[in-house]
């Protein structure tokens, strides 16, 4: 018997974290007399900031190391997961790590009565409303917390690592027992607060497990592309260029249809067109070309391609004009400019409701914290004010 754990994480930002969790599952399982093996999904490398990635841990009570490795070592992706950990809750909207993969449901690999463990501060129904309907029941467990983001070099030691291990023990004591988790953490660090964090997560997650029935979830709206066969490729290694096409207006620029990568974002920019001074900077600085110039001189956003880097919000010279908002606040990818044109006042009301009153400004070095400031919304017809620059 093999138990498979997959850890869904945001590329680079959570790379070190996912690797630590995967590796430690193997070490702890070994303390319990089991055999374990862990690796990363091959095609995720080279990793890019924000792109959904996976790390795996395989544990077996009865197979030998060689048998386990032969079974699990050489696969591109796993077919089923007993436990699927999600380290950033915005990934419930679907994941598309590379071209020809399609936007796939985050719960795609979960087995009947298997577990999804999501790090989130949201209620279960707020997450399930984005997830695909499964033909069988499974469990959704929530570990309360924010997504832990860090860079490659500065690790963010916010105990997410220890808490996830404790939470896994709450879901499947045969895989990892909480005693073994605590014993391992103590032996490794001799730090009481790490052991405590695992124990607390273990207790809280035990009371935060919800059954998801086949009636819950949505019919998955994205098509999974069919890979071309070898004989369907053109001669040599030739890829068709994107056809040249451009006109003013939403989606006026031709784009790579086979890789939309919008699932990279955990935040999206919300624009107050009524404050915009048409300075062009958001459009000019966007590394993903997702701004579409409109006939009246504004810049619409194609959210299917936006990766949520936040550069537009940073370079925008007008206060409150472009603001980054949690991706889970949005249901669709419709054009914000068309929405605004149709109903200018309704759009501003909608935008301000999504934005709320708090602005989170991350520190420049990734994962070293952020500033949260409260702001007063600018009323319709309000005078555009210059924005404060955080970095330079």
């Amino acid at each position, binding site marked *: 018997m093999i138990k498979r754990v997959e850890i869904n994480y945001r590329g680079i930002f959570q790379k070190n974290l996912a690797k630590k969790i995967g590796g430690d599952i193997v070490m702890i399982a070994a303390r319990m007399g089991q055999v374990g093996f862990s690796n990363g999904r091959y095609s995720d490398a080279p990793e890019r900031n924000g792109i959904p990635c996976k790390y795996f841990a395989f544990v077996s009570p009865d197979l030998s190391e060689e048998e386990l490795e032969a079974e699990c070592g050489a696969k591109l992706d796993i077919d089923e997961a007993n436990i699927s950990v999600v380290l950033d809750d915005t990934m419930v909207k679907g994941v598309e790590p590379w071209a020809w993969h399609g936007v796939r449901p985050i719960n795609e690999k979960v087995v009947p009565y298997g577990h999804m463990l999501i790090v989130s501060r949201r209620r279960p129904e707020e997450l399930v409303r984005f997830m695909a309907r499964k033909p069988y029941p499974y469990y959704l467990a929530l570990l309360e917390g924010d997504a832990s983001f860090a860079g490659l070099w500065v690790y963010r030691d916010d105990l997410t690592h220890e808490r996830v291990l404790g939470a896994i023990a709450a879901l499947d004591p045969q895989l990892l027992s909480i005693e073994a988790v605590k014993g391992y953490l103590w032996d490794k660090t001799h730090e009481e607060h790490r052991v405590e964090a695992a124990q607390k997560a273990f207790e809280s997650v035990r009371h935060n497990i919800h059954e998801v029935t086949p009636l819950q979830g949505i019919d998955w709206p994205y098509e999974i592309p069919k890979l071309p066969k070898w004989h369907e490729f053109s001669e040599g290694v030739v890829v068709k260029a994107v056809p040249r096409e451009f006109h003013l207006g939403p989606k006026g620029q031709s784009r790579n249809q086979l*890789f939309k990568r919008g699932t990279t974002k955990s935040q999206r920019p919300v624009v107050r067109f009524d404050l915009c001074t048409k300075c062009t900077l958001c459009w000019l600085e966007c590394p993903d070309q997702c701004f579409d110039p409109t006939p009246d001189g504004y810049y619409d956003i194609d959210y299917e391609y936006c990766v949520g880097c936040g550069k537009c919000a940073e370079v925008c010279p007008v206060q409150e004009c472009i603001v980054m908002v949690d991706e889970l606040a949005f249901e669709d990818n419709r054009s914000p400019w068309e929405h605004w044109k149709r109903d200018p006042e309704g759009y501003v009301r909608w935008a301000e409701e999504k934005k709320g009153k708090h602005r989170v400004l991350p520190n420049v*070095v990734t994962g070293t914290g952020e500033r949260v400031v409260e702001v007063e919304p600018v009323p319709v017809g309000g005078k555009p004010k210059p924005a404060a620059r955080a970095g330079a």
Partner: protein
Amino acid sequence: MATADKVLVYDRIKGVKQIPLEEFYTSGHRTCQGCESATVMRQFIKAAGPRTVVAGSTGCMYVANTSYMTTPWIVPWMHTQLGAGGSSAVGMAAGLRALMRKNRIPQEKINVISFCGDLGGGDMGLSGISGALQTDYDLLIIMYDNESAANTDIQATGLTTWGAQTTFSPVGKVERIMHRRWKKNVAAMLAVGHPNCRYVATACATYPPVDFLNKVRKALSIGGPTFIHTYDPCPKGWDFHPRYSHELGELGVRSGLLPLYEIIDGQVVYTYDARKTGKGRIPVREYLTKQGRFAHLTEEDIAYIQRMVDEMWDEWEVPGVAPFRGTLKVSA
């Protein structure tokens, strides 16, 4: 320095409002959030226009831009080997010239651009680029420099800044600084050694605005082989939040650590004059403390980098460009 006796005629973009709206490097590439190198790709092809052929050496901008048999390029683009940035450009330019001479394709100006990363261009492909700059073909080589082999998760190259953490130079308990090489001065090196090359420049894709686009236009208009070195802040390898990639480029330039200049027919024109007599410079601390790769630096290290930058602008014969200093007196 620059004198007014020669005039370079080119189609100048006078402001952001004049930048062409159409993209020839479009959305749907597998780059990082806030990738500045993707901005370099987008802007050079915007400046060059649709009648352009592009070759790309192995590196981030090859791998990220060809996710499983798809491409964001609208113009013809070809992958070439890691060290072949120069030779591929020569090959394409020579091919086009031969086809036009034999009337197989109509006579017209087709831009030839080859890009390479700092490892591909500054270290491995340097001889090929040097060879290309000695020819008489019209071609432009762009080296996008994110100061590491960023595609394979950040290994040090000859262009990594002194003291930076990379997977080749991890911070240890015994040795704090593992990367002790000073950044290789590629643009000036190429300008000094290649009299055929009439235009060499350094640039930052987004600071000052429009500057990089105009540098590409100048390089493509002046004729012969040309070279542009761009400084691209890399959120992945430099470890800063993708939101601030414009800021980091701006800070690097204003601190004098990343000098911006053009060398046109042997004349130096500063884009950002960081000398005290010019625009001056901000302390390098402003730039260094905003990156996780420098998180281990001490006050002493920062002071050392500051000293090196001051020397570069205050004492070099050609400030910020060429590290020659007066005449050395040698006793017999």
